[in-house]
């Protein structure tokens, strides 16, 4: 347990896993390089777990993502709560069958006789020159999959509280971590705290325009809100935290209040998560919005390697502020 006032997302996640495993002997973990002989995860999120809880509960695996998710599913069917790591989000592509055809559907197909309380932790994001096959945000695939939940924290306290809730949730949860945000700091979580799934947080109240974001984009949006404030624009910032099911009520109330909505994510804009929110808000607040809903996401392109291109890929504070400003002016 940490006594510090501030902590990083890596530390918060590590603490969440440690606390969850200490509290519930059914929580188990697996993934590539996860255990301490392998360094406790390539980023160190799982450091110390295998030493403390044993190497049958916390297991390094071969590079075999179908086997990883399959093992998690199987154990979850009989009472365990596996936390499986898929190292990078693009590698979910080799385990899609296990995730969408099995984890997401077994409760329904069994008529509720079984369920799959697994958490799939994965990391992603642009910013470290990882190129086309290691940087994608693919949350839209899973949001479109009935039975899955999708979570994407932006700060240490939420990372802790959401991971604890995800582990306790009775359904499969995809838990998205951003690589360059791992080391960003924030207020330390209260040990044992929970952040409920499906509830957004209003990071900053405002009256002129609503900005909805999640994962690292919240950090960029916070800077944008500050910049907007200096220009006399009062922006309300909502951190979705859970991407699916998303917090309709909070988003609608804010958009109704400000009459202007900007949705920000790192994933490709087209057919992305922003489309669902934009469609729903445009419909429900038809005739009540002051401006068309605006989406700011990645371009219709794979993630490029070259620095100037990669830097232009994901929205940043400047472009978020510009887009918000364009809605207000």
């Amino acid at each position, binding site marked *: 347990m940490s006594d510090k006032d501030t902590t990083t997302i890596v530390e918060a996640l590590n603490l969440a896993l440690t606390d969850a495993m200490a509290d519930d002997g059914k929580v*188990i973990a697996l993934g590539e390089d996860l255990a301490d002989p392998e360094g406790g995860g390539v980023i160190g999120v799982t450091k110390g777990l295998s030493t403390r809880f044993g190497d*049958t*509960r916390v*297991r390094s*695996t*071969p590079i*075999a993502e*179908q*086997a990883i*998710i*399959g*093992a*998690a*599913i*199987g*154990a*979850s*069917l*009989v*009472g*365990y709560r*596996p936390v499986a790591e898929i190292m990078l989000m693009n590698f979910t592509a080799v385990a899609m*069958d*296990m995730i969408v*055809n*099995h984890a997401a559907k*077994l*409760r*329904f*197909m*069994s*008529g*509720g*006789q*079984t*369920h799959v309380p697994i958490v799939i932790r994965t990391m992603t994001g642009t910013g470290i020159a990882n190129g086309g096959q290691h940087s994608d945000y693919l949350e839209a695939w899973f949001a479109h999959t*009935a*039975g899955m*939940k999708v979570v994407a924290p932006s700060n240490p306290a939420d990372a802790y509280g959401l991971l604890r809730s995800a582990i306790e*949730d*009775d*359904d499969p949860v995809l838990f998205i971590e951003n690589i360059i945000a791992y080391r960003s700091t924030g207020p330390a979580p209260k040990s044992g705290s929970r952040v*409920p*799934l*499906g*509830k*957004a947080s209003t990071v900053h109240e405002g009256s002129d325009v609503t900005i909805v974001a999640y994962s690292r984009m919240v950090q960029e949006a916070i800077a944008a809100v500050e910049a907007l404030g200096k220009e006399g624009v009062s922006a309300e910032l909502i951190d979705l935290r*859970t991407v699916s*099911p*998303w*917090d*309709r*009520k*909070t988003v609608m109330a804010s958009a109704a209040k400000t009459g202007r909505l900007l949705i920000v994510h790192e994933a490709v804009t087209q057919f992305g998560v922003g489309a669902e929110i934009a469609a729903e808000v445009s419909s429900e607040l038809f005739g009540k919005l002051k401006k068309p809903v605006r989406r700011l996401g990645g371009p219709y392109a794979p993630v490029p390697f070259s620095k100037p291109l990669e830097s232009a890929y994901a929205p940043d504070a400047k472009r978020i502020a510009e887009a918000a400003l364009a809605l207000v002016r």
Partner: protein
Amino acid sequence: MSSNYEPGREIQLEIFRRMALLVANDEQTRRAVRTGRLVMPYYSYRGQEIIPSALCTALSDGDYLCTIYRGIHDMLAKGMPLKDLWAEVAGRISGTCKGKGGPMHLTYPAKGIMVTTGIVGSSMPIANGLAWASQLSGDGRVSVATFGDGASNIGAFHESLNLAAIWKLPVIFVCQNNLYAEHTTFEKCTAGANVAARAQGYSIPGVRVDGNDPIAMYTAAREAVERARAGEGPTLIEAITFRFFGHALGDNDSYMDQAQKKAAMEADPAPRFRARLIAEGLATEAELAAIEADVNARIEEAIASALAAPFPEVSELTKDVYGAEVAA
């Protein structure tokens, strides 16, 4: 092969009882589908009954099973009640999955029937997870994944055998090699001598057995079960068999070697087993006929009860998606 586990009379009769149930159930199902009483895709297992009958006789109720679309024989052999099964394939609310799963996705945890999958190869990775759970809890259960010969060429097969081997999981991989994957012959799509030989690549036992021979099949299954329970890890069993009614009921099976099919049907393992039991004096004609009459009566009762049951309300469509409604 050691003969420690050769089945005696009682076990052979038990295998026969399961087999008789399976044979009759397939016949009734084919009839129900052909006459339109049931509307569903049906992957007949006729010809393959000995495999799960012997296998499940070697298992306990608590042991876990992951099977596939062609798996109703596996489920019945493992103990799924006929009424729950028939109501499910008839799409009724009283079905084991409330009619939501259907013939490719039956589940019945009370007898360890945990997953039925329609995706080739996918029974194996999940069985590993069930086995991991038993390893963690020390509950002594064994997990079984059954699958077809065609499934032995997909990635999940390889990943699963490797993981089971290095983790020494109490799991048994049972390949029901019926010599066809849909319309493609085993030889045309499978490299290597056979499926069992692939076990070597993982340093685990790979056993090729006549799946139509109850003695051989039971013995192989028992050995694998004992090995798994003793913590010695996984076994791959390749059980050679044949499916009599093509891939899916209604298939035009002109792609099949008709002479091969004719020979296989003439060598039908069910009457062969029956005749041998009588010939060897292990059972009388009357005893076996009584078993058969009993299963037929039970199946008919199950059909009647299934068809009399109500369908689910349309509101069921969006239930069982999540465990609890989410606040938002």
